[in-house]
């Protein structure tokens, strides 16, 4: 409506949605709808369901870490609580024949997550930073320990299980098949992501960013940093609860594992790998992590070692995560100078990749040497079968690693220059 002013498109008080705002969402919906036509098997659907659950949970987690600057080591508690409560609802509905359609379950999961977050948040959000992190760790441990003690609520180590096909069929669907569950979860994934995105655009969402960057300044703008944190925390708890309900629907069982410290650690890993600085970072993280976990654990026993190393490298060298790395290239693409980077990238990253392969080969050989049964000296690595006790193999791996590193290091200067050139707008060319 005010499009006629000379300000840039962003600057118009947007009273109308632009295509740029809606397109990613429409694309995501279309993608989710079409995906099962490519990957048809139940296993693939189960994995995609797991991916969607991780996406919602990681986004909820990022409301704390990325947007509110609160590092939590115990966020699985809210997911677990929401999920357990949903299992109880599922069973209650089955026993009493209540008219509650399955697809509405996540609302209840969210409300229970919200409830718990309200109680815990009322004292944990008084502090930020390190203290908040420690409190979240303590609370997480406490509640996780309670899961095996309070059997009524959490069913001990067996957990609580139920049957999702209980209630009223919704439009003829009984949720017997994974594909039906897939679409229910898909709907909730998109809806939750959208709501979380919109939350970040509300006054309290904006102030969450402000409090993250500079709590003192925010206080002198009339906002209590503590209450801003509290509201973010509650909202995050709500969506973690939604993710818990999605777990309940997909697996029809909730166990203490879902609430454990491990789970809380994993979600930190996922969010950080994806990139906490951008809204879509955790989505990338969730997808990459789920795939990595399955692909790597398919090929190697020490995949967690690689994952740990990757995580540490991300923290040290790419604190923006994958999303950060991607977004670094946006200015380059805008300047239309992406071509400048292609060759230097190949010249640096290819040897770097070779080096990584060399290092991992070395690790695998050592691992095989130490842990394989004696007599079983043969191992296959990258389609080559050889004797793992032969020093030559280790030597080759080492040389490959060192050579790759050397070349990458030598060419990194070129990449740096190219990067600089690609990021500098052209002045000279008329």
């Amino acid at each position, binding site marked *: 409506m005010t499009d006629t002013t000379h300000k*840039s498109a*962003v*600057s118009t*008080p*947007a*009273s109308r949605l632009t295509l740029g705002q809606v397109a990613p969402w429409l694309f995501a919906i279309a993608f989710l709808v079409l995906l099962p036509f490519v990957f048809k098997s139940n296993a693939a659907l189960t994995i995609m369901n797991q991916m969607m659950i991780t996406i919602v949970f990681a986004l909820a987690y990022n409301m704390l870490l990325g947007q509110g600057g609160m590092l939590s080591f115990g966020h699985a508690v809210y997911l677990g609580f929401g999920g357990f409560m949903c299992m109880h609802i599922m069973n209650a509905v089955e026993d009493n024949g209540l008219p509650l359609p399955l697809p509405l379950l996540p609302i209840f999961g969210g409300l229970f997550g919200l409830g718990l977050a309200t109680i815990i948040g009322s004292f944990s959000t008084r502090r930020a930073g390190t203290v908040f992190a420690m409190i979240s760790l303590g609370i997480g441990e406490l509640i996780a320990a309670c899961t095996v003690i309070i059997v009524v609520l959490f069913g001990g180590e067996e957990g609580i299980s139920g049957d999702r096909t209980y209630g009223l069929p919704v439009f003829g669907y009984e949720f017997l098949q994974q594909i039906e569950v897939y679409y229910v979860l898909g709907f909730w994934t998109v809806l939750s992501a959208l709501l979380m995105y*919109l*939350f970040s*655009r*509300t*006054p*309290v*969402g*904006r*102030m969450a*960013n*402000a409090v993250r*960057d*500079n709590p*003192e*300044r*925010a*206080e*002198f*703008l*009339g*906002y*209590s*940093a503590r*209450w*801003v944190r509290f*509201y973010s925390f509650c*909202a995050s708890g709500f969506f973690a609860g939604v993710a818990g309900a999605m777990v309940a629907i997909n697996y029809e069982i909730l166990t203490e594992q879902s609430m454990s410290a491990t789970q809380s650690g994993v979600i930190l890993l996922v969010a950080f790998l994806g990139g906490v600085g951008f809204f879509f970072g955790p989505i990338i993280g969730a997808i990459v992590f789920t795939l990595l976990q399955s692909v790597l654990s398919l090929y190697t026993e020490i995949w967690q070692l690689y994952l740990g190393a990757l995580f540490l490298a991300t923290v040290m060298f790419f604190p923006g995560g994958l999303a950060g790395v991607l977004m670094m290239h946006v200015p380059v693409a805008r300047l239309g100078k992406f071509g400048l980077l292609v060759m230097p990238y190949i010249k640096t990253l290819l040897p770097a990749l070779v080096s990584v392969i060399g290092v991992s080969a070395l690790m695998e050989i050592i691992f095989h040497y130490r842990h394989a049964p004696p007599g079983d000296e043969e191992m296959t690595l990258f389609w080559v079968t050889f004797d793992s006790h032969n020093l030559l193999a280790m030597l080759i791996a080492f040389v490959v690693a060192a050579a790759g590193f050397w070349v990458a290091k030598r060419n990194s200067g070129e990449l740096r220059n190219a990067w600089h050139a690609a990021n500098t707008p052209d002045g000279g060319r008329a």
Partner: protein
Amino acid sequence: MNAPMSKTAVPALQLEGLRKSFGRTEIIRGVDLSIQRGELHAVIGPNGAGKSTLFNLITGRFAPTSGTVRLHGTDLAGMAPFQINRMGLSRSFQITNIFPKMTVFENVRCSLLWSQGYRYSFWNLVSRSRELNEGADEILEQINLTARRDLPAGVLSYAEQRALEIGITIAGGADVIMLDEPTAGMSHSETDYIVELIRKVTENKTLVMVEHDMGVVFGLADRISVLVYGEIIATGRPEDVRANPKVQEAYLGAALEAEH
């Protein structure tokens, strides 16, 4: 000039017997000060006189050891900074204190939120409120940062960040504005620019500023207080303070002689 108002009016800001100790050291040693509505008041003093401490006592960043601070007649004891802010007192910081990762526009918009009544709303979208966005743009216009609107605040030049700091401080529409050394570390031309800016944005408001730069204070303030070793040794119009022998002795002497 317009400083002395009727005696019965409630002062915008009133300090009574304010004291603050850190450990055994007393930094503020009994300050009494009354600032009328609409007055432009400056607090000056040599390094280590306790100017910033006084400032932090007024704005609730520190709790006083004894004494009271009243804003429009209300005692501020025990109030958190955000509560004081909501009562209409807004401050800037000596060390630039903005939201570096947010855009310039976002910085200003955030500072408008509370005053426009959004509180902790999570059902409004900030981009959908014309009043909010236009208000923020107006302030950007006032502080001459429209051209920098969509840059992250952290990449602005120092003077621009100081201007933004003032923009954030005044955006909430508070009627008592407190500026802590707004021109610290600036060149002459930059200082002139900021002074002009302060004059423009504090029209019809009460201003309290701590300042080191003499030129700024004498050109701008209605009244001046001189703080030395935690005590106010003189308060009055600039020319009176300038003439005050105690002030001359304690603080201005050398500087003034050098100037003339």
